């Protein structure tokens, strides 16, 4: 009969050990518009899709990525053109997550990536055109920005769904230089 007591204590210790070092079994449910990555001991094991995911809660974790589309809209941004004029532009666009793994690692907040890429591409493309060129080939420029942005977003796990220049006008020569110390955003 002492064997029963010893077995009882052994089982109890094993259970405590499993809970202490491995964790306890649990599940996470991902919604239809979510993707996730299962991490074990800090490193990615596999990508998981919508549905129930079983895991060990002490050593594993699912980090979810919202794959719904991310709308982007900017207005009244200024850019210098090659002939010294300043263009004022605005755009709207839409992108969604194509590859959850790439998107998760693309930035601290991956929702900012489409806005960043569209802004960078718009400014870079517009800066290489003159005011005369902007007036006659706006559609061509819009297509060029969309093409560049699509390629960059694809590399970062996103899919560009739409892009449109909503505002484009010539505002005049650029501002005079200002070599004063910059104002910082301290509170």
């Amino acid at each position, binding site marked *: *009969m*002492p064997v*029963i*007591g010893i077995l*009882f*204590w052994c089982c*109890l210790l094993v259970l405590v050990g499993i809970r202490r070092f491995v*964790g306890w079994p649990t599940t996470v449910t991902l919604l239809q518009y979510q993707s996730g990555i299962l*991490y074990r*001991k*800090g*490193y*990615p094991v596999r990508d998981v899709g919508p549905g129930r995911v079983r895991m060990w809660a*002490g*050593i594993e*974790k699912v*980090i979810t990525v919202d794959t719904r589309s991310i709308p982007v809209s900017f207005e009244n*941004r*200024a*850019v*210098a*053109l*090659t002939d*010294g004029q300043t263009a004022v532009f605005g755009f709207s666009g839409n992108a969604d997550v194509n590859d959850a793994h790439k998107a*998760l*690692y*693309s*930035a*601290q*907040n991956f929702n*900012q*990536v489409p806005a*960043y890429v569209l*802004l*960078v591409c718009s*400014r*870079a493309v517009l*800066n*290489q055109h003159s005011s005369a060129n902007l007036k006659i080939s706006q559609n061509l420029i819009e297509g060029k920005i969309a093409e560049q942005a699509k390629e960059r977003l694809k590399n970062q796990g996103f899919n560009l769904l739409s892009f449109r220049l909503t505002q484009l006008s010539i505002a005049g020569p*650029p*501002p*005079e*230089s*200002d*070599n004063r*110390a*910059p104002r*910082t*955003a*301290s509170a």
Partner: protein
Amino acid sequence: MNNDNIWLFVFWGAVLFILAQRIFARKKPRIFLPDFQRAVKFVDGAFGSVLEPGSHEPAGKNEQITVVDMRPQPIVVERITYQDAMQAPSVISIAAELVISDPFEAVTKLKNLVNDSIAIIRDQLRSMVSKRITDPAPEIREKLAGEITLALNNDLRRFGVQVQRIEVTELWSRTIKPPMAIGAN
């Protein structure tokens, strides 16, 4: 030892065990760090260690743990107006990614990683490009981006932060033509 005594021993042992676990069990969950995060552990207010990815014990009563995200933070610094080395009015915009190179330095030296870094970047960028002659030709931009990266990283390194993938998205300078010589033969 008879049967009753054994079962009594098992029963009271289990009761004691469960009570002890309820009393001494940790209230905080374990700290799970994915491979894109690190954590800086302070013990009694002093630097203890940098926690690597994995599952870690929660902070004790005399410990504080600050989690740091090592993924890049995209930033844009737009329309910095300046006078270049030839006193020509110029405009520059850059886009870059801010990454943490040293979690301890970043946590202890910057109150707000992005805002504080952008202030340093604006200041350093303006002083660096003001010493050059601005050439807005597209082929010069990559070289300029490389030089800006070096200059900014020299300044940001002591804060545990670095910039990478700098792109010059806008560059313009008013060309100043030299005055024509009058009356020269």
